[in-house]
Structures are given as structure tokens and as C-alpha cells.
């Protein structure tokens, strides 16, 4: 393979700088011993300690984690079912429509999804906004992702594997338990982790469906920066960033064929 020309190196360096310098600044200033994000004074972990004693922040974090765990678990189960169904059954018309219907929420502008879910919860279901509405919304936008990952994984499997299992005397449940499930496990892990990051980071949709009672971490950060971008916000953003990054790296390890690091 040819080596890329110098100007390509320079251009990509520029792009990466544009993407990552703002993030680096946030991380840097979360360790800055000053209340202002203006100049570097000295190293401190004071803001992190302060975070740990901020009740409101801790409650928001707990909400986010509980919702993310529940939403990604549910999305994984439902998404896996959708993925398996899409791969296994060939139903006229529906076979083409189903993947499209499942994937649409993934591609839909978030603000649209947020508004429509809000209208649906309030006008149609007459649901009090809170935990449940956030949970349903998060499951909705994560499910499609799990379904794709599972379907891609299954598409790479020979159909004869499942026929062989059946031929050797396995009931449909035994085939699922002993063959299908172990084979799609990496996809489930990847799907779960991706759903978790989508859920814990989500702001736009949650903003619409959260109501007044429940606050998640991104909503809390938003309400804090309405006053000012304090070093505490930097610190919590840094933690969120680290968590997300870890989960994405984990996910790409589980399903390298789906989330390819290299072409």
C-alpha cells in the first residue's frame, strides 16, 4: 500500500485537532486550581472531591446509571429478538419493511424523536413524565442499534449450523440456548454497551420527556452551565467522557466485525 502524501497527513491532523482539542481543554481545566476557565494556575483534584459531595449531582448520576442499565438491558433483549426475527423469517413485504422500521429511530433527528415521544406520552398515553417515560424513550432509540448488530452477526453464520443442530435432535429452545445465544453473545455485549453509552449521554430526547421530577446527568450539566461553566462541570464531563470511551472500546472488542477499528 502507498503511504499517504504529506498534505493528507496535515489535513487529517487538522481534523483530529479540531475534534479533540476542545475535549482536551475540558479535561485539562477539570484539574485547574482556579474557578475560572481562563488560565492554568496549578494542578488540583479539588473539583472531583467537590463533585462527590454535591447531592444534586450524585442523584442525577444515580438516575442516569439506573436508567441506562434498565434501558440498555431491555433494548438488548428486544433488539436481539428483532435481529433474530429479521434474519430468520422471510415474510413477503414485511421482511423488507421490518429492518427499515426498526432502524428508523436510529437515523431520525433526535429533536423530532423527542417532540414526537413527548406528544405521544402526553396526548395519547396521558403518562406522567418521569422515570418511565425516559426509560421508554431510551429503549426506543437503542433497540434499533442492538437489532442491527445482532442481525449482522447472524448474517455471517451459515444457515446449516442451525439446520445441523435441529437435525441432531435439538428442540427450538435447545437450539437457541446452545447455539444461537452463544454465537450472538459478542453482538449482545456490544449492543448493550452501545445502548448504555447512548442512554447515559443522551440530552435532547431526555430533555423533552423528563418532565420536572427526574434529572439525568446531561440535564444536570446543562442546568449548571446556564449559570457558568464551572470547573465542576469540567470534572463531571471528564468522568462522563472517560466512561463513554471505555464502553465504546469494550464494545468494539466484543464485535470487531460490527464496529471496525480498521478497514
Amino acid at each position, binding site marked *: 500500500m502507498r503511504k499517504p502524501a504529506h498534505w493528507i497527513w496535515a489535513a487529517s491532523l487538522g481534523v483530529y485537532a479540531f475534534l479533540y482539542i476542545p475535549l482536551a481543554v475540558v479535561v485539562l481545566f477539570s484539574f485547574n486550581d482556579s474557578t475560572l476557565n481562563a488560565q492554568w494556575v496549578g494542578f488540583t483534584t479539588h473539583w472531583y472531591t467537590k463533585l462527590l459531595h454535591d447531592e444534586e449531582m450524585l442523584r442525577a448520576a444515580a438516575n442516569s446509571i439506573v436508567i441506562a442499565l434498565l434501558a440498555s438491558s431491555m433494548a438488548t433483549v428486544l433488539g436481539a429478538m428483532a435481529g433474530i426475527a429479521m434474519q430468520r423469517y422471510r415474510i413477503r413485504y414485511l421482511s423488507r419493511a421490518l429492518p427499515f422500521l426498526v432502524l428508523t429511530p436510529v437515523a431520525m433527528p433526535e429533536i423530532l424523536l423527542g417532540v414526537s415521544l413527548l406528544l405521544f406520552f402526553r396526548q395519547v398515553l396521558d403518562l406522567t413524565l418521569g422515570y418511565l417515560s425516559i426509560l421508554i424513550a431510551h429503549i426506543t432509540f437503542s433497540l434499533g442499534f442492538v437489532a442491527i448488530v445482532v442481525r449482522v452477526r447472524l448474517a455471517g453464520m*451459515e444457515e*446449516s*449450523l442451525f*439446520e*445441523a*443442530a*435441529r*437435525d*441432531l*435432535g*435439538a*428442540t427450538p429452545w*435447545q437450539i437457541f440456548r*446452545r*447455539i444461537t445465544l*452463544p*454465537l450472538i453473545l459478542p453482538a449482545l455485549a456490544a449492543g448493550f454497551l452501545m445502548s448504555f453509552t447512548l442512554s447515559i449521554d443522551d440530552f435532547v430526547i431526555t430533555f423533552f420527556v423528563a418532565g420536572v421530577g427526574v434529572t439525568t446527568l446531561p440535564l444536570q450539566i446543562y442546568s449548571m452551565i446556564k449559570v457558568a461553566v464551572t470547573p465542576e462541570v469540567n470534572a463531571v464531563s471528564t468522568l462522563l467522557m472517560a466512561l463513554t470511551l471505555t464502553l465504546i472500546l469494550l464494545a468494539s472488542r466484543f464485535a470487531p466485525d460490527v464496529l471496525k477499528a480498521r478497514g
Partner: protein
Amino acid sequence: MALLELRNVTRRFGNLEAVKDVTLAIEAGEFFTLLGPSGCGKTTILRMIAGFDAPDEGEVLLDGKSLAGVPPEKRPLHTVFQNYALFPHLSVSANVAFPLEVAGLSRAECRRRVAEALAQVHLADKGAAYPHELSGGQKQRVALARALVNRPRLLLLDEPVSALDAKLREQMQVELIALQREVGITFVFVTHLQEEALALSHRIAVLNAGRLEQLDEPDKLYAQPANRFVADFIGKINLIEVEVTAASKVLLTLKAPGLGEIAATDPRPIQAGERGAFALRPELIRVYGHKESADLKNRFEGRVKELLYLGDVTLYKVELANGFLIEALMTNAAPGRAKFHEVGDAVAVCWRHDAGVFLRG
């Protein structure tokens, strides 16, 4: 009673009749082969026996009882798939244990039977390996062990050897024969390779375009093909267009246009005036120098047009008076001589009156 029977089985896919009115019976302990070119319906028949497909008409019977409505997992027969279909996440032992475990056998019993099955296919030391660590031949053996471990009534093999290279294939064929004799389980083998079918089988069903052309033992199939398709598909053969001019009880006189009369035998009642083909295997023809006399009734002069020297044998293509190119195979068994004739030599081809077969139509 036959172990497995197909009665007037027909299967259609849209407008295509993949299997047309096939009736056959497979006996217990037999090595039975379904042979035919790709698209002849042999795999469809296999899938109907396994239960992955169902006939549109007719029925499949096991021990005289119809298998209609019995799903694959409930049929006491297993398939060795063309691509082996080993479970990639399970070790060799776990793959072989799979049918025992789903049947609910005890752990100790599973272990004992798995060890036995792996020993049978000479893989006793590979139990801990995973399928991706095995060679093609080893995968094949694991698939065989897995399909045989809970002693099915019938083993279906879908072109299991065709993915292997030539040398390994021959070795696996020898092992398959030995294995079948050892376990005594009925094998139903599907292949498009006629040599493989001849070498392995007790009986062969030749299929073409969904129809059963002939069902017989390998040597009968080879010596007495029922029609042009079987004659042409199995081995090399010369097909000479002829008309019957005289027919007595067993003796036939055939007239080949531009060539003359051919004497042949046939126990079937054949009428003078029938048309068809005279089928003659190349190894039944002798090629003499044109001055040598041969005490054979069927003697036709010609010229060697081409020859293929193959070491142990030479294939001569001799052009006869009517332009027909007849193939004759002679062993090079004379010491000190590589071959008997050269290209361009005037020769005479001869064969015994009972050497060929008259094929109607």
C-alpha cells in the same frame, strides 16, 4: 421390509419439478448412493428424507410408517452437511456430545460415547481442539462422529468428500467404507462424482432432471446401463446410432449407417426395425494392426486419429469408415513396448458379440 422408502415422491419449486415421481427403497445396512449432475434433485431428496423439506406428492416412509409431519429433530436419522456445519463455539468433544446432551443422556454416558465415537474416526487426541484448528479431513471426521454418536437408523451424507483435495478424498472414501461396515448403519450418500459412487456404494440410484433413471448395483449400472443418460454419465462409452435389422431370442443384428452390421446379444424381446444406440465401453474394444486377423465377428477398419498415452493404459481414438470416432482403451502390458499403435496407423477395432448393449430410443 425396507428401512426407508420413497413412494411416488414429487417436489415442485414454482414451475420447476425438482423431483418427479421418484420411487425407491433403501434396505437396512446398505451403502446407498444418489448420483446425478447438479440440479438433478438429489439434494432435494436428501432434504425431504431429513425433514427439512416435504414432498408435494407421494410420501417418505421409515420402517413402513409415513414421516409426513415428523420434524427433523424427531427423525432417527442424521445428516453430514456438505460444509460440515460444526459449531464454531464448541470444542470437538462438545460438538460430538451435542446430540447426546440434547437427548438428555447422563454426563458419564456422554463422555464414554464421545470418546468411543472419536476413536472410531481416529481423532481420540483432538477432543479439546476447536473446529477452526482442524484440517478439512479432520472436520469431516468430526462431522461423521457427531452424526453417528447416538446411533441413528440412517446417515445422510451430502457430498461430504467433495470439498477435500483428490488424495485426501480417496483416503476418506476408503475410511467411509470401513466405517460403514464397522457401525453397520445405513448410509445414504449424495454425490455428483460417478467414480466415487461406483467405489463406495452397494447400490446407486442415478437421477437426472428430477427423475430416477436407473437403480442398480455399481457393476450392473456400468455394464448394463438402462438408457443413453446413464450410459453417458457413468464412465466413458461409445454410442453408435443403429437400427435393429434382425432379432432372434438372444442375438441381435444391428445396422450402423455407413459402417455395416454389428452382432450383439440382448435377452430382452426386441423387434426388428427398432432404432437406438449401441453402447460399447472403450476397454472392451481391441485395436489390431489392419493386417492382423482377429477371430471376432465385429471387426471394423479405421485409422488412429489421436491417442492419449496415460502410462498404464493408452486411449486410442480411431476414425471409422463412416467418420465415427470410436474410443478404445488398451493396457500397455507388453514388456518393452510403450504402446501398440501410432497416430495415422491403419488399424482394425474388434469386440466380442456380447460386449455392448443396445439402448432403445
